[in-house]
Each structure stands twice: as C-alpha cells, then as structure tokens.
C-alpha cells in the first residue's frame, strides 16, 4: 500500500528531535505538526516572522494581525517570539533552523530540487522556498513518487526550473524513504506492502538498492 498523506507526515515526524526549531512548508508538510513524538519539544517557525507557532485560534482568539506563512490565522505558544521578515530569513539563511520539510515537483540524484514553476502554467512565485533550500542544513522533501500520469519525480536531472541546486539529501515519498549520496538515490525504507520492484520501476534516476530494505511500520 502506498502511504497516505497522514502516514507520510507521521514518518517524517520521527526525524524530529527534542529542541528542534522546525519550518514546515505548505501542504502535506503542515501535517507533520500533528505527529510530534511524545516526550519531545519542538518549535515551529513561520517565515513571515513567528517562532513558536500554535494551533488555529478559537473565534474569541481570532486576530487579523497574527497569521502564518500560508496566510492562515494562528496563535502563539508560550515562549514564542515575533520578528521582522529580515530577521526571519536571517534565521533561515544563517542555518539556525534545525529542520525543514517541504514539497517538490521533482528531485534529482544531484540533490537538485524543482518545486516552484512549471513553464507554460501560471507562475505564482517561490515565496520563501529558495531561501529555505539554499540554507537549511537538514531538509526532507515530501512528495509522491510519481505524478498523476505515472511519471517518476525522482530523476537523473530535474527537467523543471530549479528551486535550489545540490541541497537535498533526503526524500520521503508515498512508496519509500530515500537518501541522496554520490549521485544516486539510496533506497532506505519501503512503504508497508510495497515491493522493491515497484519502487525500482517508478524511480527514473539512478537508484541503489541495498540487500535489505526494511518496511516502515505504523
């Protein structure tokens, strides 16, 4: 079985460590916040200038002046701080954010990522994604293994315009968890019930398959 969106978030959440400052991209990455392992504390950074993002507000708490990077109304947790966009990106560019999770259209064996523009389609912009991928020391990309037409999104060379070059080392898809090393994807784990053969057939980029590829458990 391929992983559900929730399972993908759950698997990535296992990478969280106590004391991490974390930036979650829009979409599936946001769900990671629902699966923080017990007994650890993490703080979420929102690049519009908030460290210590809390849950959505109640009707009573709703405040137009307090939003996240997805422009949704949010709250702050105890111990939060608020700052300017330039301070926010100093944190990001300076490598102070411990862990970043974001989506992508394509990733390749050189660690290149394409996530912001499809030529010929409406281009809305990169927001903070180029800053995040250029600077974060510890990034996981969450995406489906193949697009809706069955084309692999794990390639030898990204076909779409890049968001960042040589910056991705880890990818979690609905089929597998992979790492990127020395110009190849390395298959580390597979989704429960998904065969190595299926992953091989859906990975266009160079793939190294170790003798033993454990199944994820949920």
């Amino acid at each position: 079985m391929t992983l559900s969106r929730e399972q993908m978030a759950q698997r990535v959440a296992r990478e969280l460590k106590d004391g991490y400052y974390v930036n979650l991209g829009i979409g599936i990455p946001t769900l990671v916040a629902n699966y923080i392992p017990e007994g650890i504390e993490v703080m979420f950074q929102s690049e519009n200038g908030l460290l210590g993002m809390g849950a959505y507000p109640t009707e009573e708490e709703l405040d137009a002046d307090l939003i996240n990077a997805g422009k949704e109304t949010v709250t702050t947790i105890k111990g939060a701080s608020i700052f300017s966009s330039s301070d926010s990106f100093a944190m990001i560019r300076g490598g102070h954010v411990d862990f970043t999770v974001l989506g992508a259209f394509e990733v390749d064996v050189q660690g290149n990522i394409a996530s912001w523009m499809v030529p010929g389609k409406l281009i809305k912009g990169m927001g903070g994604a180029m800053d995040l991928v250029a600077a974060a020391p510890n990034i996981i990309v969450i995406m489906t293994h193949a697009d809706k037409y069955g084309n692999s999104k794990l390639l030898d060379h990204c076909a779409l315009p890049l968001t960042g070059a040589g910056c991705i080392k880890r990818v979690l898809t609905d089929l597998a968890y992979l790492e990127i090393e020395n110009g190849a994807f390395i298959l580390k784990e597979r989704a429960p019930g998904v065969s190595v053969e299926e992953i091989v057939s859906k990975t266009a980029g160079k793939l190294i398959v170790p003798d033993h590829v454990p199944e994820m458990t949920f």
Partner: protein
Amino acid sequence: MSGFDKVVHSYDEAMQGLTDGMTIVAGGFGICGIPENLINQIKKMGVKGLTIASNNCGVDGFGLGVLLEDKQIKTMIASYVGENKLFEQQMMSGELEVILTPQGTLAEKMRAAGAGIPAFYTATGYGTPIAEGKEVREFNGRHYVLEEAIKADFAIVKAWKADRYGNAIYRHTAMNFNPMAATAGKITVMEVEEIVEPGELDPTQVHTPGIYVDRLIQGTFEKRIERRTVRSA
C-alpha cells in the same frame, strides 16, 4: 512644535509628491499589516507607471490589488503573487511586468537599501532561473549570487502605535516587511492605529526608530483576513 514631529493630518498630505513612474516599497505579508489607507490614497491620486516592491500584491479589491484596477502598476517585485484574478490577467497580457524575487532576498534588498549597502551576496537562488545574468562568486567553496538593493522614492508602512516623532511599534506578525520597508524610502510614510506623545513609548520596546519616518498619520483599518482558520473552543 518640535522639528521631530512627523504627524500629518490628511492622506493627501501623506502621499504628496508621489508622481508617475516612481518606485514604492510597501510593508505587509499577504494582506496582514498592509498600509491600506495609503494604498487607497495612491489609487485616488491616479498616478501611473509605478514600480512596487512588496511580498505580495494584495487580493482583488483590497490592498495593492486596488492599484491594478486602473493599471497603475507597471512593474511588480514580489515573492508570491496570483491571489488575484486581475493580477493574473495583466501579467498574462504583458501589461504588468513581474519580477519574482525570493522572500528572504526581497527582505534583504529592502534592508540593504536602508543601510546604505548597494548589493549583497546570497546563496539563495544559485543555479535557478532567478540567478540568470547575475554575478556569481565563490566563498569557502559555495556559490553566491549578487543581488542589488531596492531603493525607493516612497516607502509605505503600517505600524500599530507610534509617538509623534515616528518611533513605532508593530503588533504581532503585522510586523513582517514593515521595519525594512520603513528604512528603504527616500520618503517614508507610516500609518498607525494610534499616535501617542513622545515619552509614552518605552524606548527599549521601539521597533522602528523615528529617524526613518518622514510622515506619520493615524488611520482606521479594516484588517481584512485572507484565510480565516479557526478551531472549535
């Protein structure tokens, strides 16, 4: 009155001197913390051919989006756009030039302008389409792209509270790009929810010192919400 008093009493006065073809930097993220009345004043003035640098371009009928209605914007410098149909139309037809700029680079372009730094190197965007034609330099084995500051004729910003000298405090994430925008204008116009007397703000709590602010006006704000997300109590 003191030579440091920045208060003006009308929006006409606040935006006086803005003419066709000028460059404006604007604070705000989405439609949070935007100088909504100053934007409406620009619409009323009808100036055209503007270059505007702001993270986004408002929504249809609110924020910077209203300046699209009479095609007042020639060039938009932003990190994320397309929350409004009019923007999409004018971009597709080529009437509106759009320079997409990474969010951190945009913030730094404003900060640099205010700090007298003409350009800076950043790793952001290296190897991507936005680095095309830009100077690249290697430091300690990594590649960095040279990005230039955005100096503007006018900066329009929104703060929560300021004293008459222009010392200002922002509220929550309505801060966003406002502090950098405030430093980047030849003329910086700030609108606030409340103006107090000098001495009423704790100097250690001031976010933007009054030196950056040329004109200050008190307004009333709609504070529209772009994505209203709530949980049940």
